[in-house]
């Protein structure tokens, strides 16, 4: 029998590559979490002793806590609005043939192509001109614009993969179109919605550039607060705040796993 060494070599190489990728992805958060637990004054890894003092500092820091709440509010608002608009757009483009469909599709995805800083300056001028400069609404509009391409893209794929025979069966049984949408289409698209929602929330939550331009006094997001903080201060409070974000992300992922199963969502 012929030797199987190329297969074995590839299998070993695959495992090694996988391990390397996972290590590279996991190490930065591990280092941040480790540094946040330091008892010393510097953000170094391994930590100098163990302590929760920097978490205490972070919770006492109203600027960070307000920014954290602001980012959550903005992230969820942008996510829901983006899902509503994005689903309407994706549904329309998937189900109907109309003039300008491709242009609309390209426009919906265009914020991915335009540098965010350009988008930020342009939006700032536009929103100021129409009286929405320095408002939460203006900031929200900006975040919806940058999250929309991910939502449209994800939901378009989900719609394309949807087995239409379920909808047809429901329609055959005399379900009205809105009933089909509510009882058949939307439930079948749930994993797609969750996936698009995660993308939208994460993109909004992590955005700095647009938030700097469209943010205003009293509406600082967490990334902006962190970014500005390191300009002049550099202590483990940052690592503690970042760890809270990591924990939040893990909780969201676990919740989704319980609700729909990660394999269906991603």
């Amino acid at each position: 029998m012929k030797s199987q060494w190329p297969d074995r070599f590839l299998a070993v190489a695959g495992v090694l590559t996988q391990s390397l990728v996972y290590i590279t992805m996991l190490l930065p958060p591990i280092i941040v979490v480790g540094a946040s637990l330091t008892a010393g004054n510097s953000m170094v890894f391994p930590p100098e002793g163990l302590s929760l003092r920097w978490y205490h500092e972070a919770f006492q820091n109203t600027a960070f806590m307000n920014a954290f709440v602001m980012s959550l509010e903005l992230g969820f608002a942008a996510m829901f609005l983006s899902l509503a608009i994005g689903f309407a757009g994706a549904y329309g483009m998937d189900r109907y043939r109309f003039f300008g469909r491709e242009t609309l599709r390209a426009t919906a995805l265009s914020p991915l192509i335009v540098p965010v800083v350009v988008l930020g300056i342009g939006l700032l001028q536009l929103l100021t001109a129409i009286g929405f400069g320095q408002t939460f609404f203006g900031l929200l509009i900006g975040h919806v614009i940058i999250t929309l391409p991910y939502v449209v893209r994800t939901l378009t794929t989900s719609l394309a993969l949807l087995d239409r025979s379920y909808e047809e069966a429901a329609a055959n049984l005399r379900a009205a179109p809105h009933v089909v949408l509510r009882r058949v289409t939307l439930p079948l698209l749930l994993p797609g919605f969750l996936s698009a929602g995660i993308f939208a929330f994460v993109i909004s939550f992590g955005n700095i550039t647009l938030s700097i331009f469209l943010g205003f006094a009293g509406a600082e997001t967490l990334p902006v607060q962190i970014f500005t903080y390191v300009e002049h201060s550099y202590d483990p409070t940052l690592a503690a705040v970042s760890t809270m974000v990591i924990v939040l992300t893990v909780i969201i992922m676990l919740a989704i796993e319980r609700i729909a199963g990660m394999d269906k969502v991603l």
Partner: protein
Amino acid sequence: MQTRRTFLVSTVAAGAVLAAPAIVRAKPFDNVTLTLNGFGGDFDRIMKETVADPLKAETGLDVTYAPGGSSAAVAKTIATPDNPPFDIVLCDSPSVPELIKADMIDPVTPDKVPNVANLLPGLPEFGQHGVPFMISSSVITYNTEETQTPIASYADLARPDLEGRVALFNLENTGGVLYLLAMAEANGGGIDNIDPAFAALERIKPNIVTLTSSTVSLIQLFEQREATAGALWNGRVFAMQNAGQPMAMVAPSEGIYSLMSYYNPIKGTKHPEAVATYLNKALSDEAIGAIANFFRYGPTTTVDLPKAVADTIITFGPEGRAKIKTLDWTKIAEKRSGWIERFNRTMA
């Protein structure tokens, strides 16, 4: 017997007596809010404690600090001249010429802001445009546990024993521009003749482990001991020392090259008097002294500091001020992109 009329009169009278303290307490800037772009973190905390909180108590003025990076604040202000988002913009020397060019800064005069008389003589770089409140200088820093021979100049960073151990800013960070100019002038050049600086950089090149635009990355490299020596902001070196790191701070023998941080009152503010009051308070000894004391960047006024604090600030007082090289930031702005291009080509 109390009639309805006497009851009403007495009620009104009692109300007036109760309201009187509130009328007496009315302050000049009740219901006025000023917005500044903050520098974030401890900066905003100190400014709140030494400027905003006392002003609130004395005048009723509310101040909000919106963090987000000073370059972005300058860009936002220039992009929306009819409705600027800030009453006062905080930014460093390199950004002030842009605001002047866009005609966005209200000149500051001693009759409006009496405390500008406390500024060190000859300090403001842009005449009546902007009020400087802090001096950040580029200094040499090195780990005293890793190298025993002191490093006294930028030229020393080319020493063979520092091979692969030097970390510096690139020119995206103004700290890089400062050491570049220092090396140019020390070798017979200057803003108009930058060649000697690049010749000096070529000598340091074999020692360089990293060039970065990020102050945080540079600090990380020193704290994690991936680099032994380099050039950094004086306040940041002090912060590392304060956190127990064995990092020395040396005023380079080429001279002290600095930038200043400015308050820039923005044209078109709805509250010019409140802005003037804020600036005056921000130049008080309490405010300037507190920032200098915490960060150990140079104060811009004649404020007196305890000797132990003053000794750690290389630009302190008139003697310290005399060591600072005067720079033409408008010209630097014109030349900078060319220097960056050449730097990236040379140092790659």
